[in-house]
C-alpha cells in the first residue's frame, strides 16, 4: 500500500527530526474538505505554540465537475519556531487528494519535498479528467520528490466501517484520515479536532465518530507504517511569541471587527451598504451577522447605490461604509467625488483582485493604488490606507473610522483577496484599552444669526461641523456644486472655487501631522537600500529583508500603512538610502507616487501573476540591487 520512489525504508517509529519551519499544502477537489482540514491543522498548530500564517486558495468555478483541475481547492500553512511572515514560498509537503490536485500543485513543491497522494483516486477516468496522458505515479514525473502513495480512500473506508455510514459518507472522512497522518507527522494534538468534530456533528453521532475514527486511523498509520527514507516525524519547537490570548483571524474578519470597533469608539451607528463581488463579499456577510452591534447592512442594487446609501447614512449622522473590489470601486468614483465635495465621512473598502476588468476575480493583486489616490474627476483628495496583514486589518479599520470622522472625509481602505482570506494568529487586544474618539455633532446653539454655517472649519483639522438631520436650528442644504466657504451656499465665484480647492487639499495634507512618522521596520534608518512596501507584501518583504540582513546585506524594510497623505518624514527618510526598491503586486504604482512626491529615484519590483511574492523573489531583487556594489557591507 505504501510505495516510494526511494527504495530504502526506514525503521518504524524512528526518532523525530527537529525543523525550524515547514510549509504544508493540502489540495483536493472542492468537495474534499481541504479548507476545513487546513483550519483544523491551523488551530492544532497554534495550540502547539508555533507561529504561523495560512492561505486558502479557492477555485474560480463555483462547483466544477469533480476531478477537474479547475475544481481544485487548496490550503497552505507555514508554521515554525521563528516568526512566520508569509504563508510560505514553496510547500515542503504537498497532500494531493486526487490527480487534479497533483497536477495543479506539483510545480510549486520544493525540490526534494514530500508529496502525499491518495493513490486510490488515480483511476484512468480521474487521470483523464485531470489532463494526464499517463499515470504520474507510474512514470518519472515524481522523480526528485519524496512520494508517499497511500490508498487513503480505501484505508478510510475500512477505518470507518463500524460506524454504519454510507460509502459516500465514509469517503467524506478522507480528509480527516489525512489530517491524522499530518498530525502524526508534526506531532500535533488531536483532541481539539475530536472535540470540534463531535460538536459539529452533534446531531449525527455516527458521522462524528466515523470522522474521529478516520482521524485516528491516519495518525496510527503514521506511527506504524513503513515510511520511505527521510520520512519520519518532525518536531517544530515553540516560537517565541508574546504571551497572551490568541486566535486565528482572517483579514475579512479582522476588518469587519475593526470597522465595527471604530464605529463604537466613535459612538456611531454603522450602515454598511455593499454589492456582492469577489473577494469583497465576505465583509458584507460577516457584518450582516453583527446587527446587535448597531450595524445595519444593506445589499444594494449595485455599487453606485451602495456608495450612495453609505453617503446618505453619513449625511444622516451614521458612519457610512461601502465595500467592493476594483471594478466595483471604479463605479463609485463619481459618488466619492460628492462625498469629497460635501465633506462627509465615508469609508470605502477595496478588497483588491487581479485585473484589468473582470480579470482574475479569485486571484490577488494590489493594483488599485492609482485608482485610490488619483482615480476621480477633478482635484479630489481623500485619505488612502492599506492594511499589511490579516490581523492588521483590525487596527487599520479603526484608523479609517478615526480619520474619516475627525476630518470629515472619505477614506479608502485597501485590502486584497489574499489578505481577506489568509489567516494568522492574533494576540487579541483588550477593547477597553483602546482610546475612544466619540464624534461631537454640531448642536443647535452653533447656528449663528444667518443660520447654521456648515462650511466653517475647525482651525486645527480644517474639518467642517457635522450636523445631524433632526437637530432643530441646523437645517442646511449641501450638494456637489461648489460651495461658498463658510455658508455652504452654492457659489459660482471664481476666487471662492480656488479657495475651496486649496482648503480641500490642505485638509487632507494636514492629516500627515496626525499620523505616525514613518520608521524602519527592520534595519538602519539610512544606508544602501530601503525596500519599501505597502499592503500584503509586508510578510514576504519582512522575511526577505530579515534573511538578507542575516547574510550581511545593508538593507532596511520600510512599510507604508498611510498611502495618502504619506507620513510627513517619508521623503526625508527615503533620502537617507542610496537605493529604494518598491516591490508591488502590480505594474508599478506606489513607486510612481513616491517618485512624483519626493523625486526619490525609486525602482520597481513588479509581480502580476495573481500570486503573492515569494520571499526568494524579493531576496533576488535585493541581491540585484546590492551585489556588484563596492563597499564594506553588501
Amino acid at each position, binding site marked *: 500500500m505504501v510505495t516510494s520512489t526511494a527504495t530504502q525504508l526506514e525503521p518504524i517509529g524512528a526518532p523525530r527530526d527537529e525543523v525550524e519551519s515547514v510549509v504544508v499544502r493540502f489540495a483536493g477537489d472542492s468537495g474534499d474538505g481541504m479548507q476545513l482540514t487546513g483550519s483544523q491543522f491551523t488551530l492544532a498548530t497554534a495550540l502547539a505554540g508555533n507561529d504561523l500564517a495560512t492561505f486558502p486558495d479557492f477555485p474560480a468555478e463555483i462547483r466544477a465537475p469533480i476531478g477537474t483541475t479547475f475544481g481544485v481547492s487548496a490550503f497552505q500553512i507555514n508554521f515554525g519556531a521563528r516568526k512566520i511572515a508569509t504563508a510560505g514560498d514553496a510547500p515542503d509537503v504537498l497532500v494531493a487528494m486526487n490527480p487534479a490536485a497533483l497536477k495543479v500543485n506539483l510545480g510549486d513543491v520544493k525540490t526534494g519535498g514530500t508529496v502525499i497522494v491518495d493513490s486510490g483516486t488515480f483511476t484512468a477516468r480521474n487521470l483523464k479528467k485531470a489532463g494526464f496522458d499517463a499515470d504520474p505515479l507510474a512514470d518519472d514525473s515524481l522523480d526528485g520528490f519524496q512520494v508517499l502513495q497511500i490508498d487513503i480512500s480505501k484505508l478510510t473506508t475500512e477505518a470507518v466501517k463500524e460506524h454504519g455510514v454510507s460509502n459516500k459518507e465514509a469517503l467524506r472522512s478522507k480528509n480527516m484520515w489525512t489530517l491524522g497522518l499530518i498530525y502524526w507527522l508534526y506531532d500535533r494534538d488531536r483532541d481539539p479536532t475530536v472535540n470540534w468534530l463531535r460538536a459539529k456533528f452533534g446531531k449525527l453521532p455516527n458521522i462524528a465518530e466515523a470522522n474521529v475514527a478516520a482521524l485516528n486511523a491516519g495518525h496510527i498509520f503514521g506511527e506504524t507504517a513503513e515510511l520511505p527514507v527521510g520520512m519520519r516525524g518532525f518536531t517544530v519547537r515553540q516560537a517565541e511569541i508574546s504571551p497572551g490570548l490568541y486566535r486565528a483571524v482572517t483579514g475579512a474578519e479582522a476588518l469587519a*471587527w475593526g470597522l465595527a470597533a471604530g464605529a463604537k469608539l466613535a459612538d456611531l451607528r454603522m*450602515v454598511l451598504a455593499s454589492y456582492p463581488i469577489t473577494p469583497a463579499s465576505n465583509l458584507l456577510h460577516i457584518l450582516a451577522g453583527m446587527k446587535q452591534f448597531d450595524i445595519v447592512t*444593506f445589499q*444594494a442594487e449595485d455599487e453606485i447605490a451602495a456608495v*450612495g446609501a453609505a453617503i*446618505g*447614512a453619513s449625511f444622516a449622522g451614521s458612519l457610512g461604509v461601502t465595500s467592493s473590489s476594483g471594478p466595483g470601486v471604479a463605479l463609485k468614483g463619481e459618488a466619492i467625488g460628492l462625498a469629497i465635495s460635501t465633506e462627509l465621512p465615508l469609508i470605502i473598502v477595496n478588497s483588491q483582485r487581479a485585473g484589468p476588468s473582470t480579470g482574475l476575480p479569485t486571484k490577488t493583486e494590489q493594483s488599485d493604488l492609482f485608482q485610490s489616490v488619483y482615480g476621480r474627476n477633478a482635484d479630489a483628495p481623500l485619505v488612502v490606507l492599506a492594511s499589511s496583514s490579516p490581523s492588521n486589518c483590525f487596527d487599520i479599520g479603526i484608523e479609517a473610522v478615526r480619520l474619516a470622522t475627525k476630518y470629515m472625509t472619505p477614506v479608502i481602505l485597501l485590502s486584497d483577496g489574499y489578505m481577506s482570506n489568509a489567516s494568522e494568529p492574533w494576540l487579541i487586544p483588550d477593547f477597553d484599552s483602546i482610546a475612544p474618539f466619540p464624534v461631537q455633532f454640531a448642536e443647535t446653539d452653533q447656528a449663528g444669526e444667518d443660520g447654521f454655517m456648515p462650511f466653517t472649519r475647525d482651525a486645527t483639522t480644517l474639518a467642517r461641523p457635522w450636523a445631524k438631520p433632526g437637530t432643530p436650528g441646523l437645517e442646511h*442644504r449641501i450638494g*456637489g456644486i461648489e460651495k461658498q466657504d463658510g455658508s455652504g451656499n452654492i457659489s459660482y465665484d471664481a476666487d471662492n472655487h480656488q479657495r475651496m480647492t486649496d482648503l480641500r487639499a490642505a485638509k487632507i495634507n494636514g492629516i500627515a501631522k496626525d499620523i505616525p512618522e514613518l520608521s524602519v521596520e527592520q534595519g538602519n534608518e539610512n544606508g544602501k537600500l530601503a525596500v519599501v512596501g505597502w499592503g500584503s507584501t509586508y510578510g514576504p518583504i519582512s522575511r526577505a529583508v530579515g534573511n538578507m540582513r542575516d547574510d550581511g546585506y545593508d538593507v532596511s524594510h520600510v512599510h507604508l500603512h498611510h498611502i495618502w497623505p504619506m507620513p510627513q518624514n517619508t521623503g526625508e527618510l527615503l533620502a537617507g538610502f542610496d537605493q529604494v526598491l518598491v516591490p508591488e503586486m502590480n505594474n508599478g504604482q506606489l513607486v510612481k507616487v513616491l517618485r512624483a512626491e519626493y523625486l526619490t529615484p525609486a525602482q520597481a519590483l513588479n509581480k502580476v501573476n495573481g500570486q503573492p511574492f515569494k520571499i526568494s523573489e524579493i531576496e533576488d531583487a535585493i541581491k540585484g540591487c546590492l551585489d556588484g556594489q563596492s563597499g564594506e557591507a553588501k
Partner: protein
Amino acid sequence: MNAPAAPLKAKDFASDQEVRWCPGCGDYAILKGVQKTLADIGTPPENVVFISGIGCSSRFPYYMSTYGFHTIHGRAPAFATGVKLANPELDVWLVTGDGDGLSIGGNHLLHALRRNVNMQIMLFNNEIYGLTKGQYSPTSKIGTRSPSTPMGSLDRPLSPVLFALGANASFVARAVDTQQKHMPGVLQRAHAHQGASFVEIYTNCIVYNDGAFSSFAEKGTAAEGELLLEHGEPMIFGKDSDKGIRMKPGALELEVVQLGVDGIGEDDLLLHDETNRVLAGLLGAMQNPDFPVAVGVLYCEAAEAYESAVYQQVDAARAANGNADFNALLRSGSTWTVGD
C-alpha cells in the same frame, strides 16, 4: 414649559435662497404646493430631509428650509435609502426629474420602489432635459426634435406610473403643477403611506417644452382632459360631468362613454379601486386625446416599510445576543493562550 408652537405656515418651509428657475417654470408651482403640504402636515422642519439628483427640478432642496441634499445625477433614491437606514424617524422627500429618475436613475428608482423604503418620491415630469438645454428624455413623445435628435426622437417613451407599477410600487399617484388645490391632497396621501410613495407631477418647461401638457393641464382644458380619481367614486369627467369611464363590454379595455346616451348611467361606470393594480395600470395608460389623463391616487396598497423591517431584525438580533460586547466578540470561536 414649552409654549404651544404656532401652527406652521407654507413660508416656514421656504429657505433664504433665491429661487433660480426660469420665470414661468412649472416647478415654482410645485414648490408652493409642497411647502403648503408640509405646513398642513405640520412636521417640524428639522425632521424633514429633501433629497434630489441633478436637473432643474433637482434644485428643489435649496429652496426648502429643511435639511437638504442635492446629490448626483440619478442616484437620489440610493442616498435617500441610506438616510432612512441611518435614521428611520426622518421624513424623507425625494425630488427627481424624468431624466434624473427614469434615464440615468431608473434602476435606483426601481429598487427604492420595490423595497418600499418609506419616503415620498416626486418625479417632476416635463418630458425634457431642462438643465442641459433641451435634449429629449425617456418620457418625450416619439418624434421629439431636440438638440440630440434633430430629425426627431425614435425611442418609445416610458410612462412613469406604469413603470412604477411594474416595479411593484405600493403607492402610485399623479398630480399637475398648475393644480394647486389638488396637489397637496395627493402629497398628503403620499406622506401618510408607509413605504415608497411615487407621485408623478407634470410640470411645464417653458423654455424647452412649453405646452407639453396643455391638452389637460390648463384652466381651459382640465375639465375635459383629465379624470380626477377618488377611491370608491365613479369615474366621471368633463366640463359638464357628462362623461365617464367604463370597461368596454367583453374586453379587457377601458372606454369613454357619454352619460345619458344609449341609456348609460353612473351605475355603468367603473368605481375607482385604489387597491387594484390592474385597474391602476389601465388608468395610468389613458392618454389624451382618446382618454382623459388620470390624476390622483392610482394605486395604494398597505405594506411594510423596508426600514422598519430592517430595524425589527436589528432588535431581534439584540434581543437574541444581548448587548454588544466587543471583548466577547473578539474572543469568540477557538482561542489559545501563550504563556509567559
